[in-house]
């Protein structure tokens, strides 16, 4: 399983050693290497569809503070919970690697950074240790910062700075929360040392069991909100989303693919893993408020998407809206909700990858992403248009495609608890049809452009087909994913439902 981490990292090293003058070599090696993690991930996925997880648990760093030892173990695990994320990350990174072909310069920097980013992203999803998680989470920041700032439109530098500031604040909050969490709940008695019995660890499992055994107190609330804030910036949730718009609007599509496809998911992953699972009591009190927040995010995203003039921004707001669904599913904290949220995450990752790849293809030909100046691309570029259509239909939740399953499950999960809110959220699905169709129809139909526009090349077609196939498979046969996540979801939801049962429902 360490191959997941090692392969992209090695790739970055190898690429860094190829002189940038050999552009062709750099590009070929880069693209191929981006696909290796995908192969590894698929291998792991195929081997491990029974729910047996890969886990490595080894001592890593240990030192003492005030007579008590602190342990930071190297604890990584690929279980049913992280498997979908890892698969998604592998697919999206490979797609982004291919999209890197559409860049015009600095391929070497792109591939090195992308591979580093891939390493960090895998690390985030497999880490089962608080400090390790934070380490990888932070590590994604740096390559992303460079990627946004080096490739893209005119405003990319500002976008990168805004990205850094927002996420810097997020990770600072996270840092504080992690340290507080370790100090608060990381202590455990070492067997055989009765007197100076205390010792801290940052192991997620230990912390979780300690927290479960502890009586609820004010510190839990503080930690819950600190973690929530940190990940709400990443997800993003409604008032904290502005940085994400800039990134989506200004960075190169190849980078937006990774960003929208994977990085946003890290927010959801962290939020579920730290805020919601660790502190179910706090979640119980805050669930309704958070659900309102989620629905506001959904609606704002949908409404704003209708008003945009730029394709990228439409998709950006659509992402915001979809992330709202994810949040809604997660705060519902029941089987359907969490399953739906996970499903929605994966499906959205794929859809974003497809949509932005199409945008990349179109933008390379037309040099614009303004809806008004695009149009009639259906004739010269039938293939790209078809892919765009598939993505858009999936995004608006057409049954039979993956987007539908996720949203449906989330809504079913949420309906038990908040009827009105769920109805409002369902209403926004209609809106999503409005904005998606407006954009796609505007681009695909209409008078064909004067200039000749070449359709996609093979290398561009391949990833699009692959992703589209995944979307269809997931939509038609959702159990591919469900079977993997079912057990994990049960364990996630169990403490909360127990709590609700004891408390007699919310």
């Amino acid at each position, binding site marked *: 399983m360490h191959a997941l981490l090692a392969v992209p990292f090695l790739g970055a090293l190898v690429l*860094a050693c190829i002189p*940038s003058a050999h552009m062709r070599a750099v590009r070929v090696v880069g693209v191929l290497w981006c696909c290796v993690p995908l192969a590894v991930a698929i291998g792991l996925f195929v081997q491990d569809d029974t729910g047996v997880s890969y886990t490595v648990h080894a001592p*890593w*760093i*240990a*030192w*003492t*503070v*005030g*007579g*008590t030892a*602190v342990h*930071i173990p190297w604890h990584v695990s690929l279980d049913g919970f992280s498997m979908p994320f890892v698969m998604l990350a592998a697919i999206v990174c490979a797609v982004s690697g291919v999209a890197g072909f559409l860049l015009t310069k600095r391929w070497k920097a792109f591939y090195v950074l992308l591979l580093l980013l891939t390493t960090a992203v895998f690390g985030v999803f497999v880490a089962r240790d608080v*400090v390790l998680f*934070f*380490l990888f989470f*932070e*590590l994604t*920041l*740096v390559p992303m*910062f*460079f990627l946004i*700032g*080096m490739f893209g439109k005119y405003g990319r*530098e500002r976008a990168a*700075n805004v990205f*850094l*500031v927002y996420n*810097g*604040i997020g990770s*600072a*909050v996270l*840092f*504080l929360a992690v*340290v*507080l969490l*370790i*100090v608060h709940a990381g202590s455990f008695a070492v067997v055989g040392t009765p007197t100076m019995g205390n010792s*801290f660890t940052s192991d997620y499992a230990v912390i979780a069991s300690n927290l479960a055994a502890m009586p609820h107190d004010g510190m839990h609330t503080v930690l819950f909100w600190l973690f929530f804030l940190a990940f709400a910036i990443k997800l993003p949730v409604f008032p904290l989303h502005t940085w994400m718009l800039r990134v989506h609007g200004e960075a190169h599509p190849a980078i937006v693919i990774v960003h929208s496809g994977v990085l946003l998911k890290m927010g959801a992953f962290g939020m579920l893993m730290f805020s919601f699972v660790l502190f179910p009591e706090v979640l119980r009190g805050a669930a309704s408020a958070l659900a309102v927040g989620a629905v506001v995010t959904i609606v704002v995203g949908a409404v704003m998407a209708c008003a945009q003039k730029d394709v990228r921004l439409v998709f950006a707001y659509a992402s915001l809206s979809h992330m709202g669904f994810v949040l809604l599913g997660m705060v519902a904290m029941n089987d359907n909700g969490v399953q739906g949220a996970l499903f929605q995450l994966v499906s959205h990752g794929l859809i974003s990858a497809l949509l932005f790849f199409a945008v990349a293809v179109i933008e390379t030909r037309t040099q614009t992403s303004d809806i008004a100046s695009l149009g009639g691309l259906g004739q010269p570029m039938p293939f790209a248009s078809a892919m765009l259509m598939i993505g858009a239909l999936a995004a608006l939740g057409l049954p039979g495609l993956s987007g539908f399953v996720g949203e449906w499950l989330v809504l079913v999960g949420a309906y038990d608890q908040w009827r009105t809110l769920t109805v409002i959220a369902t209403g926004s699905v209609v809106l999503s049809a409005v904005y998606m169709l407006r954009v796609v129809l505007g681009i695909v139909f209409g008078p064909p452009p004067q200039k000749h526009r070449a359709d996609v090349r093979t290398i561009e077609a391949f990833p699009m087909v692959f992703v589209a196939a995944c979307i269809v498979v997931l939509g038609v046969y959702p159990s591919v994913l469900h079977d993997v996540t079912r057990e994990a979801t049960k364990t996630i939801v169990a403490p909360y439902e127990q709590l609700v049962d004891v408390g007699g429902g919310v």
Partner: protein
Amino acid sequence: MTTITLRLSDLVIMAPECILLLGVVVLTLADLWMKSSRTSIGIGALVVLCGALAAAVVQLVQETDATVLFGAYEADAFSSLCKIVLLLAACGVLGIAIGTPNETHAVGEMYTLYIPALMGAMLLVSSREWMTTYVALELLTISTIVLIGMRRAAIGKEAAMKLIVLGGVSSAFLLYGISFLYGCTGTTYYEVMASRLDMGQDASLITIAFVMIVASIAVKIALVPFHAWALDVGAGAVVPVAAFLSVVSKLAAIILLWRVCVDVLFPHAADVVVDVLFVLVCVSLVVAHVLALRQVTLLRLFAVSGIAHAALLLVPLIASGTRPDVDAWTIWLYYAVAYVLMNVGAFAAISLTHTTGTQPHVHQFAGLVYRAPWTAVAIVCIVLSLAGLPVSAGFFGKLFILLDALSQREGTAGIVLAALIVVGTVISFAYYFRIVRQMFWRPEGPVPPSSVRTRWFAQTVLWGSALGSVALGCAPGWLMELLAQLIAHTVVS
């Protein structure tokens, strides 16, 4: 009274300093008689430092624990470790200095004078007696003043003048505080003084003396209300000297504060001293970062950001309250090593990209990635460490310090410290990443690319620091264990 004075065996105990002294004499004479080239003197100085380094390492390995002159000078594991850190930092500074275009009046002195300054710093570490402390401190200060004043440009003289005045005032406060303590106890030895001080009888006098001593050392460290000089002086010095000021002098002053607090101040008025330091550290953590945002000249920027790091280095001291334990010392040493690595590296980067005759400015990094991509990568590693991002020494240093502060200090104090550190870190992203932005996103700057590639010593320093930072970030446990093992018996005894 029998006359007891320095013996030959004492010189062995003081071997690192003695080697430096011998070395500086030999080098000065060689400079006078042989008309040797500048670089060879610099390399000679480097050799002398390595000799002292070897001596310190030998002492550390042999677990030398001896005192000289009734305990005026003590060589123990912690002192040896501090000396090793200081020596490594000084080696880095010399590496930066060798090959820098000469901006000074002198030829050899530009290198040889680092050695007495370093000697002062090392004696400070080992001194357990006020007179020795005072003269060692002055040796450090005056040597640095001369180093600054030797710069040809008038700006260097001006900076030197400022440092003379400020150093004088802060020494006066230090001496005034000491004189009261002397008045209460009749001795200048830390240990005897600590045992004779009587808070019952002279509480207010002792307290005020303590506050004066802490304040005067805070001036040397440049903690915030006393920081203004550091910016001006840092900006007036040539790059290697600024590096020396910001790394060696600052660390020496922090070690001094640590020593004095543990030996003399904490046994008697821990709460007052800790409160004073707490306020200074909190203010420094915030103000230094905010000030740094406004700096464009690199030397000023690093002078200010050094203040924030210095404040961070004091956190383990005040977090532990009355008596820092092995862990506080270990954590401190770890961050000290990280601090040396990242700051020496940063100054090496500044020096490498700097054109003579101008003030180092952030624009000098513009487009560096196009003309020296590998150098740019090394600089990125150092910036990561400075900003406290993983995987770097700076990140783990901060993590250790935070965990220590939170677990040692119950209640609000620890949380306030932690929150300030975190807020400061976020602010620091903004100014540290300015350098990265220049390197990667700006077209090539006005600086000709020649100097970047040819200066091997500075390149070595840069790469050494960058790789060291990353290595410590990947395997922080290793150094922590080593340090804890080495100093365990010193602190416990």
